[in-house]
């Protein structure tokens, strides 16, 4: 670490530990006894900055790495410990707000199960080793054969160093793996309106018609969209229509929730388009004739029969879309997680086109002037590619960081076999997850609150910002190193050119950004750090519309089974939240279950299968079976069963282990026809009662208000009378 950093961080030497003690232990004894003298120690500062005052919290700006959203955060630091995270009000991404995962990032930082020292596999088991041993081992193995990197979503200068290192060791493949993504939607946008990441103005829309896009919880940048949703709900109040097979958080807030047969979202969109054109005289300008004829085939009745939604509801949706303009139509989540995913997204964009939303509520985003810094969102197609390539023996050396392929991969794509075929596996991680515990070398990383970095948020409006990540405190585990530092070191020892002048990643980052900002003054740099972000040049894009290929292969499976939906939840996310007690104990928004997985079933289905709430059910697909407890409610299509992703770890730590099940394992290899995204909502399963009952631990034992005025509801019409809006 460079001297400059040492000085800046000097205050982090702790001063006492007030409050952390068991505060009430002695308060019943006579006060002369409790008032101890010379029991506790105080360690004074060495040479603090003048703004550092013991007993007064200082807020430092950084960036949240809970998901790819890249929200800017402020961390409250007191006596050298970071105590609380809050959103950075100046951020255009999250405007000072934060989601539960962002709040809980603290616990991944102070987690008792973090890796303290490098681990090296010696005759079968991982044993602690020194950094030098680990690095030299990598040095000798790394250049032997075809190398590759697997990361999560990655951007900014971390991406640059990773790619530098990759090319230095002569590898080419970089698999960016994110199970929860909006890849299908973004690809469709790229193909059809010419901008993979358009700006979506929920606040401007009067109606949001969302095909499974859970923009309040898991879609691109949840906090940003939630913030805009707040404005969308204020006067004049917009209407939210959500169509999906199993209720997501967004669905839970919908005015009209349309429980639809899994995989038939395209038909619904076509049906709505049909009603719009025939009943409400909306001209399908810019729509190809092929699409037009497809629309004509899907009159509401037909669509209704395909996607198991009453025809009048389809007409109602059309009516409300026609009446209130501008509107916005989104597709994502479960709608795009099946073979027809792409066409669902295309259909959604088609609706936007005929409703004239493009250019109004969907406007062109901006493109980073430095593509090499841009965000690689990552997707699950890469996961499959990784498995395939590994099995083909295309990979000899693999570096993994920020993703957990062995947990995310369905058994059907044979990731385990592939993994064993890889000769030498290095995992950079702060937690010993499934992948790390199967690696040959594990390098312990500093937590996201101890590390330097620069990030490009997945989504932001207006100017593009480079979000800065800076350490908020001294490493909790002294022998861990920052991701940048490690990769930079690897790149150097692999002989990458032009890196020798930087003795650590901080130095590299700082000079890189000074080049970017064309200034090298300490003052400027500190102002960047204070702001936590800095604008970077970006180019505008133009929106056009070329009709996308829409095709509906109706879900006509008649095997008497159900469609398994591996639902994505805010909280556990793709499993990275499973070892944070706060998230484990924060109830799921819809089912309100804590500390375990559950299987959502419709009462009708449950009755026919003889399953009661809390029964253990066995969910069997062609690739194995999982057993978890049933949660019975009416927010799911009778033909579907939903199990959340994220639990069911065999490693990762004391809170995550042996807790719940992982539905991803039993997915069949189905993918989206166009993008190759793993279809998480299309696996046919058969469900049996496992014959054991143990009530789920959930917040709500009673789902009804029993005549109490708890959540009072008034109709929108009344509200408009009093508060205005049309």
């Amino acid at each position: 670490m460079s001297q400059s950093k040492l000085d800046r961080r000097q205050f982090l030497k702790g001063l006492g530990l007030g409050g952390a003690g068991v505060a009430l232990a002695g308060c019943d004894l006579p006060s002369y006894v409790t008032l101890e003298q010379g029991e506790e120690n105080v360690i004074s500062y060495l040479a603090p900055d003048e703004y550092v005052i013991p007993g007064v919290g200082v807020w430092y700006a950084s960036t949240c790495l809970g998901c790819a959203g890249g929200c800017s955060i402020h961390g409250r630091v007191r006596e050298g410990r970071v105590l609380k995270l809050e959103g950075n009000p100046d951020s255009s991404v999250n405007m000072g707000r934060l989601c539960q995962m962002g709040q809980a990032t603290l616990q991944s930082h102070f987690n008792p199960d973090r890796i303290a020292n490098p681990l090296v596999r010696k005759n079968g088991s991982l044993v602690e080793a020194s950094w030098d041993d680990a690095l030299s081992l990598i040095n000798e193995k790394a250049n032997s054969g075809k190398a590759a990197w697997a990361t999560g979503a990655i951007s900014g200068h971390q991406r640059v160093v990773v790619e530098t290192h990759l090319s230095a060791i002569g590898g080419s493949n970089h698999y960016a793996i994110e199970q929860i993504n909006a890849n299908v939607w973004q690809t469709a946008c790229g193909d059809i309106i010419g901008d993979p990441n358009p700006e979506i103005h929920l606040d401007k829309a009067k109606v949001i018609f969302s095909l499974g896009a859970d923009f309040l919880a898991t879609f691109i940048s949840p906090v940003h969209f939630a913030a805009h949703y707040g404005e969308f709900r204020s006067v004049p109040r917009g209407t939210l229509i959500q169509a999906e097979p199993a209720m997501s958080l967004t669905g839970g807030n919908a005015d009209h929730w349309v429980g639809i047969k899994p995989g038939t979202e395209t038909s619904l969109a076509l049906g709505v388009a049909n009603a719009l054109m025939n009943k409400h005289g909306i001209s399908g300008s810019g729509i190809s004739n092929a699409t037009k004829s497809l629309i004509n085939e899907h009159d509401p009745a037909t669509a209704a029969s395909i996607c198991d939604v009453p025809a009048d509801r389809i007409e109602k949706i059309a009516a409300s879309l026609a009446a209130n303009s501008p509107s916005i139509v989104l597709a994502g989540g479960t709608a795009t997680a099946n073979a027809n995913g792409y066409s669902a997204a295309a259909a959604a964009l088609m609706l936007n086109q005929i409703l004239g939303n493009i250019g109004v509520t969907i406007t062109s985003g901006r493109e980073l002037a430095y593509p090499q810094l841009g965000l690689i969102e990552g997707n699950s197609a890469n996961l499959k590619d990784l498995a395939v390539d590994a099995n083909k023996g295309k990979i000899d050396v693999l570096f993994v960081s920020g993703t957990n392929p062995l947990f995310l991969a369905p058994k059907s794509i044979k990731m385990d076999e592939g993994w064993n075929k890889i000769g030498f596996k290095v995992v950079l991680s702060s937690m010993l997850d499934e992948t790390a515990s199967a690696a040959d070398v594990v390098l312990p990383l500093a937590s996201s609150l101890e590390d330097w970095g620069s990030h490009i948020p997945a989504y932001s409006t207006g100017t593009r910002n480079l979000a800065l990540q800076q350490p908020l405190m001294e490493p909790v585990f002294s022998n861990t190193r920052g991701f940048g530092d490690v990769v930079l070191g690897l790149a150097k020892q692999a002989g990458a050119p032009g890196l020798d002048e930087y003795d650590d990643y901080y130095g590299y980052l700082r000079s890189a950004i000074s080049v970017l900002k064309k200034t090298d003054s300490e003052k400027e740099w500190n102002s960047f750090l204070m702001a936590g972000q800095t604008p970077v040049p970006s180019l505008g894009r133009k929106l056009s519309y070329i009709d996308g290929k829409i095709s509906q292969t109706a879900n006509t499976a008649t095997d008497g089974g159900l469609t398994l939906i591996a639902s994505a939840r805010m909280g556990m996310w793709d499993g990275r939240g499973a070892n944070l007690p706060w998230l484990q104990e924060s109830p799921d928004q819809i089912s309100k279950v804590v500390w375990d997985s559950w299987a959502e079933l419709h009462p009708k289905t449950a009755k026919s299968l003889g399953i009661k709430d809390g029964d253990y059910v066995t969910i069997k697909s062609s690739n194995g079976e999982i057993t978890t407890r049933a949660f019975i409610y009416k927010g799911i299509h009778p033909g579907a069963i939903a199990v959340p992703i994220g639990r069911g770890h065999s490693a990762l730590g004391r809170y995550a282990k042996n807790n719940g099940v992982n539905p991803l394992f039993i997915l069949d290899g189905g993918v989206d026809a166009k993008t190759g995204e793993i279809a998480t909502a299309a696996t046919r399963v058969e469900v049996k009662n496992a014959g054991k009952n143990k009530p789920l631990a959930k917040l709500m034992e009673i789902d009804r208000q029993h005549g109490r005025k708890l959540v009072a509801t008034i109709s929108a019409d009344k509200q408009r009378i009093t508060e205005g809006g049309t």
Partner: protein
Amino acid sequence: MSSLFGNILKGWTDYTKGIEEGGHHKYEHMWGMVIDLDKCTGCNACSVACYAENNIATVGEEKYKARQSMQWLRVERYFDEPDIDPGAIDDENAMQERGASFLPMMCQQCNAATCEPVCPVAATYHTPDGLNAQIYNRCIGSRYCANNCPYRLRVFNFYSYTDEDGAWPEPMKQQLNPDITVREKGVMEKCTFCIQRIRAAKDKAKMENRKVKDDEVKTACQQTCPTQAIMFGDLLNSESKVTQAWERQQVKLGKYKQDRENPKLRGYRVFEELNTDPSVLYLERVREE
């Protein structure tokens, strides 16, 4: 004797006035809240922020199931909508036609709190800030207050969570907020409207010889709420947003029945009819019919 009896008993009576006598006769503040249920998405960010801010212990599955959880702020979820279509929930074969209803419930900081008069040791009482305070180190754990809370919003330390296999194994202890006590077993606790933040703001204001500004105090839940559904402020400060919101909804403190000329307004207080006089105003959820 005078110094011991006189003054204390004088100070004592300050806190024993019910709302019908105008409550505490010299309020400095009256902290209140407004929660817009139409904006609340039930995302739980507030709840987790509360854990982070207030040193709340996590209890694990078994204890949670046994209803011994410690959360101060619970986001309740209901599937029925008695005001829009009662009985919709009774049709077992239908599917949900609307979303769920979410209700963030934290201590309502009642001004005629049912928990206050029953505490044998006066560990819970009404402060000059209009808060319903809980003094942990005075509490002896008779749990009468919790029994008497119609909202069930007081949580009790049924176990000790401070040892190594408790809620904060090393190094998680380091995250504990030094501004608040870590509660031991046998102590009642509840939402405090982030009293440590209020106190910090008041100290700051006093040091600068000024009044506390509106928006100077932000509770953890309000600060983090992605849709800004939660509003917090001083009801004695006529400029504050909260006061204005209360006035807009024509809801007044100290009443168990609001006589408003416009019955269509959305403001209501939970169990207002019990005359607990809560300081948290909820705005009814809006739904398209």
